[in-house]
């Protein structure tokens, strides 16, 4: 089924895709704002503002949003990450109008009641404290922070504790007034509906909303890295973890697809399902080198498509009785191998077939499709999504060699070691 793209007079982008396999429709609104828009002092504000959109408006008082979606048999959530803030509801197809009314309302009418802001501060601090319980979160925060000295990708979306303690109601309100408006948003519907009717209803609900003035953009590109950065982190536990982060191209860069193939060969296929565990990677090179040999209990990689150049992250859990140095030496040897020997065509073809399978799996669920349509428009455009498999299929062995030489040298990476302190 074709994807339709429209732009309303007030600047709202609308993406529609009919999918009639189940009597279910998903509706998403994506805002072009994430923690990339935050400067020191207000880190975490995008995520906090997202929480406030669940705290009520005059039409949907606090608690009413959850209640109405649930009693109509729906699921809902909101997410904030580096490049975006997004909200969705998935409902039985004949109830989706509720979602349109809700999202049109909270795009401009959320209350941001000061008492609710105060209560949410401790909820978000609790969310951060829960994350801090995980050594891999702590290590990731250090490694990404060291990899980005200048770009706001430097800080995690949850925000720094000092800012979570001091961000004011006024700052949150300003964030909402600045970034939440039709001209800074993308509405996505996928499911069991008639596209012209859906477009008409979206125009009715969202058309009357006025555009905001164009928000300022934080433009602090990360300068090239000219040498390996290394760090250690000590913390509770008896398990050591390694993370190596290589600067990587943005989603829209032509190098992105060859690097995606490379990541698939090294650490396994990327999952396309937001709500499922990542696909297994037991035939990947680093699994064979690290896990089959008993050096690591697990290894994983991620190359996320991003608006600005981000990272190819490789993470390993050191097996009991083995050392971080052993794991890192073996990782280095595998990177050297891929830098010096062209990959066999067979591995390239496997990576392409795996991506095709992941695409097929992800299309079972309209919610997943809504996610990928919106995500793609945030970090690139719809063409990027529609041509995804074609662009992967066009990658050659030479492309892979070229991007390996460009992105995988040590001078382009940050390596972090988590040193467990027993306790």
């Amino acid at each position, binding site marked *: 089924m074709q994807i339709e793209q429209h732009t309303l007079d007030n600047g709202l982008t609308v993406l529609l895709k009919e999918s009639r*396999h*189940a*009597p*279910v429709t998903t509706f998403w609104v994506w805002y072009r704002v994430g923690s990339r828009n935050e400067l020191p002092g207000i880190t975490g504000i995008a995520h906090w503002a997202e929480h406030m959109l669940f705290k009520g408006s005059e039409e949907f008082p*606090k*608690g009413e949003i*959850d*209640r109405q979606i*649930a*009693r109509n*048999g*729906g*699921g809902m959530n909101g997410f904030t990450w580096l490049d975006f803030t997004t909200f969705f509801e*998935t*409902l*039985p*197809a004949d109830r989706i109008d509720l979602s349109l009314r809700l999202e049109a309302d909270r795009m401009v009418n959320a209350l941001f009641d000061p008492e609710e802001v*105060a*209560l*949410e*501060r*401790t*909820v*978000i601090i*609790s*969310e951060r404290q*829960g994350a*801090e*319980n995980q050594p891999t979160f702590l290590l990731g925060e250090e490694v990404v922070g060291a990899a980005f000295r200048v770009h706001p990708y430097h800080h995690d979306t949850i925000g720094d504790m000092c800012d979570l303690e001091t961000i004011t109601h006024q700052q949150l309100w300003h964030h909402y007034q600045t970034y939440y408006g039709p001209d800074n948003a993308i509405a996505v519907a996928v499911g*069991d509906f008639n596209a012209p009717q859906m477009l008409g209803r979206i125009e009715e609900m969202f058309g009357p909303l006025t555009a905001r003035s164009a928000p300022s953009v934080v433009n602090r590109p990360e300068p090239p890295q000219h040498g390996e950065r290394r760090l250690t982190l000590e*913390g*509770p*536990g*008896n*398990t050591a973890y390694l993370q190596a982060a290589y600067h990587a191209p943005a989603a829209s860069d032509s190098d992105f697809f060859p690097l995606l193939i490379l990541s698939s060969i090294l650490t*396994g296929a990327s999952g396309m399902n937001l709500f*499922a565990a990542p*696909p*297994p*990677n*037991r*035939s990947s090179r680093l699994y*064979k080198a690290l*896990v*089959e040999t*008993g050096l690591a*209990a697990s290894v994983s990689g991620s190359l996320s498509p991003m608006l600005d150049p981000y990272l190819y992250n490789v993470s390993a*859990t*050191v*097996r*009991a009785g083995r050392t971080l140095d052993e794991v890192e030496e073996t990782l280095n040897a595998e990177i050297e191998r891929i830098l010096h020997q062209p990959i066999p065509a067979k591995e390239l073809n*496997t990576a392409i*077939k*795996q991506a095709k*399978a992941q695409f*097929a*799996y992800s299309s*079972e*669920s*309209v919610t997943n499709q809504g996610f990928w349509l919106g995500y793609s428009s945030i970090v690139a455009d719809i063409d990027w999504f529609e041509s995804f498999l074609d662009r992967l299929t066009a990658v050659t062995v030479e492309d892979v060699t070229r991007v390996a030489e460009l992105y995988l040298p040590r001078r382009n990476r940050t390596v972090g070691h988590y040193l467990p302190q027993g306790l």
Partner: protein
Amino acid sequence: MTPSLPSAETIARLDLSNGLVVLAYENDASPSVVIGGYLWAGSLSEPPEQAGLSSFTAGMLMRGTETRSFRQINEALESVGAQLSFHGGVHTAGFGGKALAEDLDLLLDILADSLQHPTFPTDEAETLRGQILTALQRRVYDTGQMARLTFDALLYPDHPYGRSVQGYEKTVSTLTRDHLADYYQAHYSPQGMVLAVVGAMSAGMVLDKVQRALGNWQAPAASPNRSIPPRVHLHELRRRLAPVQGKTQSDIVLGWPGLARNDPDYMKARLANTILGVFGMMGRLGDNVRDQQGLAYYVYSQLEAGMGAGPWLAIAGVNPASVDRAVDGILHEVHRLRDESLPPDDLADSQSFLTGSMPLRLETNEGIASTLLDMERYNLGFDYLLRFADLVNAVTVDDIQDMARAYLNPDAYALAIAGPG
């Protein structure tokens, strides 16, 4: 086009002569297929001093067969983007996999090979043991896992539900390759095994393919264990702290013995649980502990009704200084559910949620497969989805209060807290 619900008319079921039950359902939403199923080879059948044996055994099935190495199996599956895995459980060992529909033969072939011809190579057993031990060592520092482990032991002492399916460092360390092979010989059998296949393939073709792949499997030496462990009773408050130093958050698990999936009270209890800690953003518990007090990012309840009476529990993650307030908040909501008459709208909301959300649960092949497996496992009947709304709507306001009073005693519960202290 709106497809009808899976029912007796559209679900194909076949009893193979070796005792294996096959369920098939065609869904053309995407060019893929999902398989799922179980065998009666869970941790119930292992002695306490060998805790972790059944889970370890399940993890070894794909790590070498008479004709394929672990690496060959991985290459074969992943070269076509397919996946398959086995996992341990209390009553059963389970498996799940998916593939493009064109690769279903390969997926079934590897499933059948892993089930019928595993060789338990010693070197692979050592590799897997290392991974399990690393996970068990990590668990000691994971507040969520430690709270649950402690809760289970507290509520179910000397009972299979109180033991860790993954086992413990001291038990997993002693298991040998022969223990695994012997456990396999004694418990893996097509007798009572269930396999569901859902996806872009006609049910007739699926049944043929499964018959070819698994129809000849015989395991006369094995005896599948379908026993149900006894119900436990809790007459006092049991509280235990699992210290996990250096952490910024404590995890709380508070609960009671619940009921089995086949208990006539099941749907009443499910609705009571939905009201308590599921509906909307985590029900009344979320409203109290998260929304009104701002104490927790997550707080919810779940009813784990399975073959036997599993626990009915509440879970929260809070700052270590807020543990007592969170526990008080949870108990306050339990008191309300027992003592205050339930506003009819609260029940109607949760009924509407359970019936209305059915299409969402059936959207993916995985969702359909797990529904089919529940129908078979708990004898719900293939008309279950057609009857579901009536079952939900038959529950009354008084039923909810009865359930809370029968199961959720605010003076006699098990409480485990894992965190600093």
